[in-house]
């Protein structure tokens, strides 16, 4: 049984078909890449997986459970986490609070009556866990500053950290390297590899940086105009003629 199984997902936006019968699986602990030219439907596919968009047809299974009708937050609690192509941070909150709120949301330990009695201060355990993630991502020095003050690269790291705090079984990354310089990209890739090795988190990665994809993912799927045009081991897919024409060809 696969961790994630998307079957024949179809999504239309008034006229255009953004996804046409797209199927994809991710196994436990695996790193899968998803590439395709601009407007191919990659972000739309993520949104359908997470429930931010309702697909017209097809289903999504997670751990063998049909979650097609689940609301977003319930999917998240099952073990989905994602980052966004257009950064979506909680303006006005500090970096540490981003991590803390994700931790609380995961465990569902927040209780209104605890707030009322002022018992909601972060516990030792929670502080320890946020500290660990801050160290992992090298964000200790900005832990107490509001996210508006961060550079784009570090803001992306906060998104990654927030996603990791929910202890996901599957991490969906939407172009994590866009807006980062070569050095930042490299250290991000390293962090992700470490997380994957340490926690056995499966990753589904959308990325334009082919080197990043090549070094990171074992399997690869290619979308073009909403169609899945290739899927298989990374090296084979990248060597495929149709893929080179549709995707790589226009970039060389």
């Amino acid at each position, binding site marked *: 049984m696969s961790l994630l199984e998307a079957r024949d997902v179809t999504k239309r936006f008034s006229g255009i078909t953004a996804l046409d019968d797209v199927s994809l699986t991710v196994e436990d602990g695996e790193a899968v890449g998803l590439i395709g030219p601009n407007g191919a439907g990659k972000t739309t596919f993520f949104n359908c997986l997470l429930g931010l968009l309702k697909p017209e047809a097809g289903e999504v299974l997670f751990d063998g459970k049909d979650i097609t009708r689940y609301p977003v937050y319930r999917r998240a609690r099952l073990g989905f986490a994602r980052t966004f192509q257009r950064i979506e941070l909680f*303006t006005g909150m500090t970096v540490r609070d981003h991590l803390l709120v994700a931790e609380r949301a995961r465990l569902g330990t927040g209780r209104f009556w605890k707030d009322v009695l002022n018992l909601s*201060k972060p516990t030792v355990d929670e502080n320890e866990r946020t500290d660990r993630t801050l160290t992992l991502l090298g964000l200790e020095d900005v832990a107490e500053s509001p996210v508006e003050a961060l550079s784009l690269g570090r803001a992306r790291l906060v998104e990654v950290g927030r996603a990791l705090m929910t202890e996901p079984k599957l991490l969906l990354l939407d172009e994590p390297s866009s807006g980062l310089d070569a050095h930042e990209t490299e250290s991000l890739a390293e962090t992700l590899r470490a997380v994957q090795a340490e926690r056995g988190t499966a990753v589904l990665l959308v990325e334009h940086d082919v080197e990043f994809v090549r070094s990171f993912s074992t399997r690869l799927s290619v979308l073009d105009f909403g169609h899945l045009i290739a899927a298989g081991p990374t090296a084979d897919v990248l060597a495929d003629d149709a893929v080179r024409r549709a995707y790589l060809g226009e970039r060389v």
Partner: protein
Amino acid sequence: MQELIRYVILGIPVGCVFALVAVSLVLTYKTSGVFNLAFGAQAFLAAAVYYDVHVRHGWPIIPAFVFVVFVISPLLGFVLDRGVFRYLRGVSPIAKLVSALGLAVALPQIIQIWLGPGQAFGITGIWWDDNALYRFFGDYTLDGRQMAILVSTVVAVLALVALFRWTAIGLQMRAVVESPRLTELAGVNADRSSSAAWMLSSAMAGLAGVLLAPFSASLNVGDFTTLLVSAIAAAAFARLTNIPMALLGGILLGIAQQLLAGYLPPASLIAKDLKPSMPFVVLFLLLLFWPGLRNRREVTDPLSGADPPPPSLASASRSAMLTRSTHIFGVVFVAFMVYVILFRADAFWLSLLTGTLVYSVIFLSITVITGMGGQISLCQVTFAAIGGFTTAQLATAVGLNVLVGMLAGAVLAAAVGALLAIPVLRLAGIYLSLATLAFALMFENVLVPVGWIGGGIKRVNVPRPIIGPFDLSNNKSFFVFCLIVLVLVSMLVIFVRRGTTGHYLDALRGSETAAQSIGINPAKAKIVAFALSAGIAGLGGGLLSMKNGIANPDDFRFELGFVFVVVVVSTAARTVEGAINAGAAFTILPVILSDWLGVSSTWAFILFGLGAIQYARHPEGTLEAGKRQSLAFFQRQYDRLAARRARSAPDQSGDGQSPSPSQPLAVKS
């Protein structure tokens, strides 16, 4: 059958007036993104000016009409666009709504002051003889006022069609209405079409005002509120987008009102109370059930940019040392004030300042729903009313202890808030606020007159409680009691804001998408915010009725709901001090104006309204902005001092440094 036709014919003229304002609403909403709740006030202004020139100064009908509809009203629209709304294009829907609310609060008061005291009687219509009767299809008759409406509406519609068909500016406006983003991309000058739309819609609102005025014996704001709400219902029917649908919606509403009045048994309670409040009920039902209004979050504001990040609170940018000193200063100041009030102040000031405490409690409910939840609710006064009436009825009619009654009122208000939140939260932004407005109006018109709720014509008395050795009918004891309640509620709000609920709400306001994707249930968090806020308002309402000794519907009029929001957001919606300052301003400013400066106390409302119009510039509240500036000043002095000391003792530097002020850098670009 004949009856039916008669009601339809009777309903059409009224419906046409609704339709004119509905078209104005849609036109400005689509061209500038502002849902102008002040159109009722603008219609009122037109009627008042018409009254002034025609009745007081004896101008003949035609010059008076032309002056009002073609000069004054478009001019007002132009000024509003140029002076206020043009600068709001990129701001959040809430900022736009608050600015419009400020205008809706200030404008009628300005008009009242200008009109002077006393009633404005004897306004006549623009037809040469209001009482002339015209026959249609045999025996259906319309009088001059109704004929004036029909003819004017037909002319206005024809003019609109011609404008939109054949003139360049009309075509541009149409393009903007149909697809604001595309037109902007195509390089159409949005400023010009927005000015034109504001002038045009203001003229139509003015026309509606002049046409409606002769139906009442004297000019009064209430008629224009009903006009506005009916127009909102018609605009909602048109999904705030479609101008022909808005026209149709207005006319249908007029007809439905007549039909309802005609066919319900005339003596029944429902007929008496439901007829005037039908538009409110229709609006509420439309918002909840009309397909196409629900779940359209992305289209709630056609021109909205991303929400700008709220500036961090002043308290976030000061050092520990400064925080400590302001806290100490605060405690000393409050202790001194309490001493002065209890042992030096006279009865008048004691009562006034007790009022400050009570209103501060009510305003804390707005801190929760607006400051923390990010929603504008226009029915906080209704929750206060629920608290007040419950306290009164349980204490007087049932005979319970009044404290128990007050708590029960708060709990009931919280429950109603949660129940209301469930359907309303599927709406977003402006629709949510409109639904709370409709709820407030329904409550006031349908439920308050009922004997066992609002007491009907009789006011229900509220006793003061006796707690142990303290009899709170002593005003000083009652002051202390209110102070304790306020402190408890403030602590509650602070704890919740710091706790998980506060964090969830912050996250949802920052990015609802991301908040959901880490497992936060948006509906649950918002329902909690609504219920908490309603409960606090209910508690405040109970206190207010205790203070006054009666549960008085006049203390809970829905217009006050506008004023409450406006007062709180124009001071500071996100902090507890803000709510308390707002409470002080709301109670003390009118007294200062009338007793010390000798001007009408309505000027207070005008000032609050104008303050709210500033909201877009200082979304954290004018007061908070001032506080931040002065804190920054003190911090600089302090830093300079610290730097000098560091220079003389080079080893002992490092603490007391302020975090560098955050640069508001838009993260979502």
